[in-house]
């Protein structure tokens, strides 16, 4: 018996209480997901791919998330990311590891790479939320975490609040690789907190593939709703 990691109520088993677990899983009945980018499509949509993926396929193999970026999950991510409640990295990492383990399409990635923060932003925030998540997922799944390999070379305007096009422009030539040999010929699992339009993970994927990664799949805590 312990306390629920999200709401703090006493729970008999697991890291989340039954109420938070059911609140987290409610979306699965509501929304179909795009089989490529993992984003949620409107109710009643029967197609497999979202309009964006139909128009142009993303460079990553697939992306999956714990749930939509709203409600309780959004509150918890905000607490984790902006209020700095680092202890949430454990339950959130656990949920993320569950997503990776439960999806057979992820295959067997050999290395986990967290989406990096720019140096200045890291100084301000004092931690990289994607890095904490990646460490937890790596620990639980027994995978190697390559920190400091993918770098964000310049600081950009925060993506939150920008449109799709502006996000692309904002991220142009931002990411670079150090010690590329680590990912050469490897299946990479890219970890981030939120996937909204997919601009950040796409930019990272392009850099990783150019450096010789065999494939890149993406796991995020939350994803956008189309």
């Amino acid at each position, binding site marked *: 018996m312990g306390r629920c990691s999200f709401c703090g109520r006493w729970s008999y088993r697991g890291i989340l209480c039954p109420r938070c677990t059911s609140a987290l899983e409610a979306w699965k009945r509501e929304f179909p997901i795009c089989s490529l980018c993992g984003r949620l499509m409107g109710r009643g949509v029967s197609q497999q791919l979202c309009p964006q993926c139909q128009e142009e396929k993303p460079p990553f193999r697939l992306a999956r998330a714990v749930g939509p970026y709203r409600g309780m999950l959004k509150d918890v991510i*905000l607490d984790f*990311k*902006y*209020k*700095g*409640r*680092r*202890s949430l*990295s454990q339950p959130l990492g656990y949920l993320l590891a569950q997503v990776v383990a439960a999806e057979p399409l992820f295959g067997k990635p050999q290395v986990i790479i967290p989406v990096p*923060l720019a140096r200045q932003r*890291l*100084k*301000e*925030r*004092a*931690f*990289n939320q994607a*890095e*904490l998540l990646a460490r937890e997922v790596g620990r639980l799944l027994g995978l190697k975490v390559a920190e400091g390999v993918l770098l964000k070379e310049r600081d950009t305007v*925060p993506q*939150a609040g920008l449109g799709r096009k502006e996000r692309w422009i904002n991220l142009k030539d931002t990411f670079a690789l150090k010690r590329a040999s680590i990912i050469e010929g490897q299946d990479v699992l890219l970890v981030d907190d939120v996937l909204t339009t997919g601009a950040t993970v796409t930019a990272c994927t392009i850099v990783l593939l150019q450096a010789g990664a065999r494939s890149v799949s993406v796991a995020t805590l939350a994803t956008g709703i189309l």
Partner: protein
Amino acid sequence: MPPFLNKVFCGQGYLYFFILGGRLRVGFSHRPGLDRGFWEARGAISFGLLSPQVNLGVAQFLLDKVSSRGPGQLSPYGLKCKLEEWGRHFGLSFSFKPAAPALPSPLEEELKFVRNVLSGRLLFLEEVDRALRENGLRVKSGLPDILQYLYLQGECELWPAVGFDRQGLPFCRRCGGREKLVRTGCGACNSRFCYVCEGCLELGEARSCRALYARAGARKNFRRNVTPRLSFPLHPAQREAYERAAEFVAKGQKPRCLVWAVCGAGKTEVAYGAIAAALAQGREILYTSPRREVVKEIYPRLKEAFPGVEIAVLHGETSLKFPPAELTVATVHQVLRFYQRFDLVVLDEVDAFPLTGDPRLYFALERCRRPCGQVLYLTATPTPELRAGVRRGTLPVIYLPARYHGYPLPEPELIVIRNLGVKVGGRLPLPLQRFLELSLVADRAQVMVFVPTVELVQDTVDWLRGFFGDEDRVRGCYAASAQREEVLASFRRGDFPVLVTTTVMERGVTLRRLNVLVLFADHRYVFDENTLIQLAGRAGRALEYPRARVLFVAGKISPEMAEALETIRRFNRMAWEKGFLKAYK
């Protein structure tokens, strides 16, 4: 800009050493040149640095170790070896580094500005900056340099927000917490040994690499004789308590005193006596409560009672956090930012959430008063610790056993009903039917029905609606219900007669004609003695209807129910013996 993201100063720097008076001394600075200038002006020689940079938390631990062993006899090489021995745990290996040239001291005027805003405070660098801006002050030198210089002069304390104790265990210097500390790699100081306190995150991140600056409050001589302006004459019971509270402050012999008043007795007015006595002696006063509503309500009342006295209000919603004041009204959380400032702390509703069971808030209250400062607790339901103090005779107590209108407290009637049948929607038992009929028809009063859990609120609402056969007569609300404010406002207006709620409404509700019904009163985790006294205390507060009905319904009479009844009776007896009560008309 995303919420909560703010730029913070990272306390990282070098350990340094020098020789003064033939003895080796050590220090830590983010700008060693500044320290070099300071110490060389006092005759120091052989100033040297030790590389690499370490964060403030680790530096403080190493400096404490060094000072406990006495560094004076060591040579610089011996010091380096010792530091390496103690720093091995942190993966540190030191080497000598050429010292930076000496820097001049900051301007005296700027030191004075910072000294003033930091007086009686415990702040992060960013908060000092904000305090300067709020008070219209500007400094040209770097603020960290100014604060470091004040520290060197012994005019302020400098601590890592999360430091280490003598055993090397981390603890939060701001809230005193030891449990909610998280160690992760820090992106600001690049250390693996940077702890973050998650217990006081709402006031800004306390980390090992963030510096906390503290300065004891300077005494101000603004003695003034103030007579509080009261909107009504004091009842004899209040008058007696008022004078005794004033005497407690005027004599200043005892550090603590409890004002134990019955619910609705007007204990705030009693505190006015203590506040006036403190102002007459030129003391600084803090009026604090765990509840924001109390702070918001008390502030205009204090302004009205003490015109001409500078009063500041601080809670989560106030924009100004550093206003100058003789009397500060604040929530207990805001008190975490004060350091040895107040001579008198008036703590209202000492037993209310979140103060109960939160040791960090007691830690803050102890720290915000001067070493010889006094605390006046105001409550109707003291915590077991305070009661024990009263029993042992270590805590002086001022009783206020009668309400301002002079009528006795309504004594609860205890009724045993084995199976209430709320969940199954059974028939309403006869005693409850009688209670509701008498309340609504004979007394023309509203009824508050208290239940122990949120789940029971809706069940009870449905059950009572079944009895009335009318949906509009009964409504329910609890802490997280979306319509809580609307339902409460509607009940206050008298739009419907019966409100079903949880203990969230145990305080701060005053209605003219109100009866109280507590269901499942033997629920031991929720309805303890203090809660039951508070619930009963909602009834009979107004002069218009002092003889209210209170009914506790339970499967059995719990010890808590019996004790609550006994305490209420004891106060009525005490008030009667002292001649404070009058008979019902």
